[in-house]
């Protein structure tokens, strides 16, 4: 047991009981017109844990409000935008965290999903904090390539589909 605890500490993985995802700001790419935006809106609103979607047509951004106490599956957002025919250019998620250490290559688990910090200045995060998802398909290609070239600093970034890589803004 002690050994397990030590391993957990070494990996800096923490599971936080009071944390949750409150909101997401998603910028979709590949579209301009309102019909495309509405197609995306209708896909996003069909996700069961989504309570409300506020579209910004001029910036092709959607503010997505989640139902409280409902686990949020980030990958559903990406899938639905792609089903509408477009892609995710930026996804910023508003988390509620409880004294979470944010340091490169440290992570936490929320609703059985692991979030790992990269490209982040060391910090303690408390309360409502904006975290940007950096994985492939959640950022524009240029940004993905830049981070993929830093694999010596962030070894888990490329080819790891089980965890999300996040940056504290």
């Amino acid at each position, binding site marked *: 047991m002690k050994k397990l605890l030590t391993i957990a500490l070494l990996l800096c993985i923490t599971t936080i009981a009071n944390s949750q995802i409150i909101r997401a700001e998603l*910028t979709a*790419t*590949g*579209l*301009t*017109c*309102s*019909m495309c*935006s*509405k*197609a995306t*809106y*209708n*896909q996003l609103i*069909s996700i069961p844990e989504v309570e409300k979607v506020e*579209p910004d*047509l*001029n910036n*092709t951004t959607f503010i997505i409000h989640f139902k409280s106490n409902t686990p949020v599956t980030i990958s559903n957002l990406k899938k639905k935008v*792609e*089903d*509408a*025919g*477009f*892609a995710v*250019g930026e996804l910023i998620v508003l988390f509620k965290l409880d004294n979470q250490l944010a340091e490169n290559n440290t992570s936490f688990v929320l609703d059985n999903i692991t979030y790992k910090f990269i490209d982040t200045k060391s910090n303690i995060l408390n309360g409502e904090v904006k975290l940007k998802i950096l994985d492939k398909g959640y950022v*524009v*290609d240029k940004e993905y390539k830049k981070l993929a070239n830093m694999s010596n600093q962030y070894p888990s970034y490329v080819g790891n589909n089980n965890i999300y890589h996040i940056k504290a803004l």
Partner: protein
Amino acid sequence: MTEPASNMPAKSFGIRNMNALMFEADGKLNYHNMPELMWGINKKWMIHAQGFISNRQEGGFETEGGSLYAKYRFFSKDDLKSHFRMALYGRYSLNKADIHQQEIETMGHNTGYEAGFIATQLLHKVAISSSLSYEKALDNKPNYKFPITESNSALNYTLSVGKLMLPKVYTSYKQVNVNLMLELLGQRLNENKKSYLDIAPSVQFIINSQARIDLAYRQELYSSMIRTAPNGVILKFEYTFFNAFK
């Protein structure tokens, strides 16, 4: 008139009605009505089923045939307010009307098939599309054989430019969008090298971000082949039901 390389949203369903009023040289007006059902299967595949009704032949309105169309989007690169897409498409049509011109048109005139490639580039408010396709005419069964003296296959090419004109700034999904479009459509018959080139300016209204009305005028620029009624007005209505399928 040409489909873009982009697909309709996955699990959505669309209805469309195309109306073409084409002028014959002797002053007769041909009315073609083409109702169409459209289904976005997933982000890559969509299919259409279409019927062809017309009063072109003696005896007034008649259902002359129908077609199945499928499009596969195989490449998509999206960036902020821009995209580049490429798709392959195919159509198989049946038609029982008489064969009355050298032009091959599997949409409403010939039994046959068309297979093509289309690319679309969106740059902010401007979309440019271009397509290239091979079209083959077969016999219009049961009564009309394709004449063996005529070319039964053709290459088609299109180039279109469209621009979102209104609104200048978006405030809601309820605003009417106005697009202007200009399209060039050409065909070259493979065996006798005869060809035509048409121009089709159009205006598009998008209502409630869900319904679309297209009004176009198609005008022949030149032609070395026999065509019955190349010029005319086209009016198209379209409505999309989002998330129609679970």
